[in-house]
């Protein structure tokens, strides 16, 4: 195994820790909000997906870096 492979694994592995926690917290917040006010479920879902997408975008940057290290 080359050192480069280790770099790829570390880049994506470490890069997904933050977004993982973030998505979890967002989900938790949305669950609590829906539990408190079930009628607002639809509106909350919209914001939920938007926020998750932004948190996920950071993991995507890590993926891009991992792919660049792997193939460039």
């Amino acid at each position, binding site marked *: 195994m080359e050192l480069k492979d280790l770099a790829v694994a570390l880049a994506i592995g470490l890069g997904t820790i933050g977004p993982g926690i973030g998505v979890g917290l967002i989900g938790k917040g949305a669950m609590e909000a829906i539990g408190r006010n079930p009628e607002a479920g*639809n*509106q909350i879902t*919209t914001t939920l*997906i*938007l926020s998750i*997408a932004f948190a*996920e*975008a950071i993991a*995507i940057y890590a*993926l*891009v870096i991992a*792919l660049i290290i792997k*193939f460039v």
Partner: protein
Amino acid sequence: MGELHISVAPEKIAHIGGFAVTNSLLTSLIVMAILLIFALKVRNQKAKPGKKKGSLFVVTEMIVEGFYSFFKNIAGERVDELFPLLFTFFLFIIVGNWIGLLPGVGSIGFYDQGEHGKVFVPFFRGPNADLNTTLALALISVSITQYLSIKTLGIKNYIARFINLKNPIKFFVGILEIISEFAKILSFSFRLFGNIFAGEVLLAVMVFLIPVLVPVPFLALEVFVGFIQALVFTMLTTIFIVVATEGHHE
């Protein structure tokens, strides 16, 4: 047993003139054909005088109506204008994702002479497991957002969002807005590509390790992921269009 082979780039299966036909392009053409045939078939079942609607028509109507009311929650009154585009995105992405899970896709192919000896080239590959397809979808989505923004706000207000010399804070906010427009293209394309490609790799690794029964739950997971990613892409496009066409409050 052969070695596990994973390729990020789509494989070329034919050449037409100087134009290389990749397996993901072939599969996206098949997806288009499926959607077209399905649409024509459903249209034939429309209620005619003295004849009831076909069952396929009823089911399709139900699904489309469900999504219509779902998007109406997000887009409000603009839904009539946006729905054809959004639902086309949704259908293309979801059929593309699910077609990649069918048996035969990625496993039927031929051996080609590559740089390092023989390389297996599958005939089919999920369209969204290719960065070119997702980049094209992302570019369409972002361009439409810009176009609708100019159309509703006017060119002056549109530019004012990006270049604003009234005060330094707004100037920097404008720069951030420009960056975020480009980041949108990147995140749209890599989100879809990353999820679908990672799914295919996951399935390939699982089948490689334990071929019997174990991959089944992962297959179910990928069906779900395919649906969610199609929904996320469509929903984000809707939200970005709605945000970009809203007049900003000074």
